[in-house]
């Protein structure tokens, strides 16, 4: 038995040292107290409140009138007769998938190309400008460029193409907003991928070149597989960002129009809550979106891990 030894062990620790450790623990909690207090008030409490709200029926500001509603809100939100599942959730997924695809494809291409140029820092700063600008600036500038008298239609007209109603035509509006979101997030992705590229030892390339591998072969069989951790991070964070963002939509289309064409789940939640005061329905929407984000993130991690086991 270890108990006797253990007891001797504890007794053997000088009282002074125990006191020291005790004091260190107290100091640690003092250092942590602002952060822990904050997380209680602005994270745990709202999170629990969000769950309660999603299962309750409440339209006012007095908590006394809050009533338990069970899963009724979720029934309303997920009902196929409503607008939430279609078109709003479908829009959300198209917006997120579309911008992740464009931004990832674009940033891999750009990061790979920048990596073989002079003045790399200069190029990266240019690509990073949209990341630094406020969404109000980005949204308004693009809204302006998309107008019939704007820059993009001006270029199209010069090329002999008729003007396109990028934001006013229901079939173009969502892709137009998606492109802007992708455009704004390329810079951050380029940085992370660049760090990933720099971490690939150059001997791998040299060895493959000695074996006579071409550029494409180098890219497919060395760069892409070794870039996977950075790529996975970019994919997951962009997905999470794409599924929950709606500031760009408020700025560019105002009410998610034309006729819900650019309405996304987080924006619908925002409007239900703060325009109509339907806290319960809005919170149920937030929960549904949260579960979707969690599921897609876990799925991506799971796929990445399985792939990893197959190749290694």
């Amino acid at each position, binding site marked *: 038995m270890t108990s006797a030894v253990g007891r001797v062990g504890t007794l053997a620790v000088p009282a002074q040292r125990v006191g020291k450790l005790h004091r260190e623990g107290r100091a640690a909690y003092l250092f942590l107290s602002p*952060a822990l207090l*904050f997380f209680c008030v*602005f994270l745990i409490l709202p999170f629990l*409140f969000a769950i309660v709200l999603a299962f309750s029926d409440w339209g006012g500001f007095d908590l006394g009138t809050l009533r338990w509603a069970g899963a009724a809100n979720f029934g309303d939100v997920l009902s196929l007769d409503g607008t939430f599942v279609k078109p709003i959730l479908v829009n959300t997924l198209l917006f997120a998938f579309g911008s992740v695809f464009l931004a990832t494809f674009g940033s891999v291409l750009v990061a790979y190309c920048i990596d073989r140029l002079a003045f790399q820092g200069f190029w990266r700063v240019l690509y990073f400008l949209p990341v630094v600008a406020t969404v109000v600036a980005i949204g308004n500038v693009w809204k*302006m460029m998309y107008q019939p008298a704007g820059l993009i239609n*001006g270029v199209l007209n010069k090329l002999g193409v008729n003007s396109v109603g990028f934001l006013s035509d229901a079939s173009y509006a969502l892709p137009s907003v998606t492109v802007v979101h992708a455009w704004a997030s390329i810079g951050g992705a380029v940085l992370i991928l660049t760090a990933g590229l720099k971490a690939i030892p150059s001997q791998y*390339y040299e060895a493959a070149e000695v074996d006579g591998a071409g550029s494409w072969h180098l890219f497919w069989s060395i760069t892409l597989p070794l870039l996977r951790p950075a790529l996975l991070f970019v994919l997951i964070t962009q997905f999470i960002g794409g599924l929950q963002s709606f500031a760009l939509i408020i700025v560019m289309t105002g009410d998610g129009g034309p006729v819900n064409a650019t309405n996304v789940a987080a924006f619908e939640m925002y409007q239900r809550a703060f325009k109509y005061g339907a806290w319960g329905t809005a919170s149920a929407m937030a929960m549904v*979106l949260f579960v979707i984000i969690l599921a897609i993130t876990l799925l991506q991690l799971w796929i990445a891990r399985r792939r990893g086991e197959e190749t290694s």
Partner: protein
Amino acid sequence: MKRRRFPWFAYLVVILGAVAMVMPFLDMVMSSFKGAGEYGVIPYQFLPSSFDLANYREAFAQLELPRLFRNSVIVTVSVTVSVLVTSAMAGYALAKLRFRGRAVIFRFILATMMLPPFLLLIPTFLIMLNWPLAGGNDLLGRGGDGGLTTSLLALILPFTVSGFGIFLMRQFMVSLPDEMLEAAKIDGANQWQIWRLIVLPQTRPVAITLGLITFIGTWNEYIWTLLISSSDPSLQTLPVGIQLLQSFLDPDRTMPIVMAGLVISTLPVLVVFLLFQKYYVRGVVLSGLK
């Protein structure tokens, strides 16, 4: 040099992409100088006929820019300072002090980064509204009109601590040598003195990184500020004030004025970013590679 294949193709891709990145900003600057008859006309003209500052003067007149600017500065500076201090404190405890529950608290702080902001938007707003003893509320948070949402504190408090900031500080402080802290302890310094006089001065590089990320993020914050200031316009910051300008003026006349306002509100961030871009870039990369 290694791998010098296809450099012309690489230049083509990167330059075309860079034009797409910079062009909207150039269009913003050019449009901010366009006069009444120059904006919104077909065919599109890139260059304005003159570079006079009429739209900038108009932006000052229509927007009460000094008030918006003051609010933006107060909120941004408060949030940045507070995030730096609380991150350095919590980061120190997690990196250098031994105490019960350290692993659990560290994992909890990592987990806080996973909760998406939209999920907390509604409950946080309601909590601010029912904040006890604020804005006329009683001890139970009832009876007042607006609670904390009528004060700039509503734009500051929910951002005073950052899980990412704590994580960044902790990662940096783990690498500080223990001998230095031990030596100070033997000299009779208490934990607060060790943190304040020995640890804090060494965190400069990571503090600049965290400070910049927080500064730029807070300066550009939109949704929460829009929400809080919707009932009290005196709380508007630059992005919100400029966005709302459009709702009550004719678009063809307003857009150049809005663009002037956006140039003014983007400049501080741009200057700060260009001066310290090395640190900002490092922060983004650190967040990606853990």
